[in-house]
């Protein structure tokens, strides 16, 4: 395969399995996000890809060549660390030239490459600056330029935006995405920020408990989460306990609901129905259709651009997000009729 292939990779620290039998194929030029909560094994997986950790089991291949036992200084995958890890005793130019010196580039070639990279990250004429003289965003860009200097086959970023303020983070996310598209370099970003992953990646690998819970396009993961973990971690989800009657029908309390067709789980088993808050439609009693349940409004929060309606539905908490123009103006204690569109109702394992 042309690209990076991870097969059955496992890494344990003592009795704790940080990465557990992970397999993933990343085609050349793709932007992948490893997304998950702290301690899910995403950074360990990235460090194994970089060669900074050795897998206990499994293989890592690049363009069909096994690189599992190759040390980091031979792989030379450009990496931007969470702490950025810029060398404080070197100037901006010297930081960028570090890998170029090791490649044996002469002074003229190094200078040309430094200028090219500084222009690429929009920091022209910063070559002589000390690292301590740079702002957070500038340091970020220098770290990116340094990692790209050696023209790495894979570009790795370990939560690089976590220390930046919200505005700068968004700016840097856009810049990085544009840069990656321009360079067409295979890029892996580790993050716990689902918004960051959704907005930047071609594909997302959602990680939990050392495993890849789901891998796919951002929208497909959002629309069709594979399990409760993914449904909970990616955006907000209403998770309702249901009993499966057949592939397209479930019982929720006294209500029979039609759901998106699913091969699993089998009939008469307990399962979880997942539906996004924005997919729930609040209708009037006279407009009742199929898949409608009556719930009691417990709390209404007007956010300006949307209205959050918290409801009690057969003892389960439910959240619906509606547009202000669609909001009827009901208050806490009122009964609302919720329509749960069949194709948005997904049945997950309990």
């Amino acid at each position, binding site marked *: 395969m042309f690209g990076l292939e991870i097969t059955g990779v496992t890494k344990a620290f003592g009795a704790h399995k940080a990465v557990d039998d992970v397999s993933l194929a990343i085609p050349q030029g793709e932007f992948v996000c490893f997304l998950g909560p702290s301690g899910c094994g995403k950074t360990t997986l990235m460090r194994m890809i*970089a*060669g*900074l950790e050795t897998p206990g089991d499994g293989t890592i291949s690049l363009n069909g060549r096994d690189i599992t036992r190759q*040390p*980091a*200084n*031979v*792989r*030379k*995958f*450009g*990496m931007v*660390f*969470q*702490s*950025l*890890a*810029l*060398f*404080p*005793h*070197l*100037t901006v130019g010297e930081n960028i030239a*570090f*890998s170029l010196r*090791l*490649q044996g580039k002469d002074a003229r070639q190094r200078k040309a490459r430094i200028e090219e990279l500084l222009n690429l990250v929009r920091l022209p004429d910063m070559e002589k600056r*000390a*690292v*301590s003289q740079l702002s957070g965003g500038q340091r970020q860009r220098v770290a990116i330029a*340094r*990692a790209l*200097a*050696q023209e790495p086959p894979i570009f*790795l970023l370990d939560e690089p935006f976590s220390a930046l303020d919200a505005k700068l983070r968004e700016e840097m996310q856009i810049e990085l995405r544009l840069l990656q598209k321009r360079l067409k370099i295979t890029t892996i970003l580790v993050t716990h920020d689902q918004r960051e992953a959704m907005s930047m990646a071609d594909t997302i690998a959602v990680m939990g408990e050392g495993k890849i819970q789901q891998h796919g396009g951002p929208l497909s993961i959002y629309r069709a989460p594979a399990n409760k973990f993914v449904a909970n971690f990616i955006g907000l989800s209403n998770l309702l306990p249901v009993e499966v009657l057949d592939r397209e029908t479930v019982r929720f309390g006294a209500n029979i609901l039609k759901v998106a067709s699913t091969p699993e789980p089998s009939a008469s088993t307990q399962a979880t129905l997942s539906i996004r808050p924005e997919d729930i439609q609040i209708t009037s009693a006279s407009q009742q259709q199929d898949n409608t349940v009556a719930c009691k409004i417990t709390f209404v929060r007007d956010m300006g651009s949307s209205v959050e309606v918290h409801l009690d539905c057969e003892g389960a908490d439910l959240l619906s997000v509606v547009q202000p123009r669609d909001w009827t103006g009901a208050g806490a204690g009122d009964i609302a009729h919720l329509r749960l569109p069949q194709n948005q109702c997904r049945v997950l394992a309990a």
Partner: protein
Amino acid sequence: MTDIPAEPKVAEVDPARTDNVVLTGLLALPALFLTVLSLVPLFLLLQLSFAHHDEGGLWTPSLELTQYAKLLNPLFLKVAAFSFTLAIGTAVVSVAIAFPAAYFISRMRRRAQVTWLVFLLSTLSLSEVLIVFSFQVLLSGSGAMVKALMALGLMSSAHSLYPSFGAVQACLIYVVLPYIILFLYPAVSQLDDDIPAAASTMGASPVWTFLTVTAPIVRGPLLSAGLLVVIWTVGTYLTPLVLGRPQNWTIGIQISNAAMTTGDLPLAAAQAVALVSLMVGLLGLTRWLSGSGSVEP
């Protein structure tokens, strides 16, 4: 019309001024101790170095440079040069051992770190006298070291390993090593592990990473540690006296001989002043070296 009396002004207290008063108060005691215990003896030493030496260990206050002229004696210069060579050698070797030791200790699990630090701290309770005489036993013809070397086939016949330069150097390194490890530990434990990892992802070997990244980042603490060793060992007295030959004797023994054996207190004072001056110069040089070209992280 009745004048309304102006409200009495609440005395405004400048917080910065209060801080200064507190700071001055806190610094007063250490400053007093420093003056009484360091500057006054130094001044007396300086005064004595310009005094006139009389027979019978006596001296009269004067302002002559006779004692300083005697310092140009080749024998004294040779001893001074040897003392600095010994001290710098001890500094280089002890820092070279202490730096990786401190680095690896700082990367251990917390419990192992504490165990090591407690062990190192406990070794500080050993006095130099005890260590020097332990080395005398260890390096003697019937000592453990000679037996071990013979067992390994590295020595053909049993003979004492002291007095010798090697014995002096080894003992001095042993004495200063725990101090230097403890001195370097805070700086080394603050080193960001991602920095050598970043160098590695850019193609640098572990040795190249250490030489071009890790060591330059901790250049300041390394130089300070080296300087500390030089200060401690340049005037060492007991170790070279017990474990060394006369040619291994240091400026400390020279000063002691001038004061106690020859009874020439002004000469001893001049030698001590010269030693202090050289140390101050070395301190300035180290400060300049650790400051120039270094960039704050």
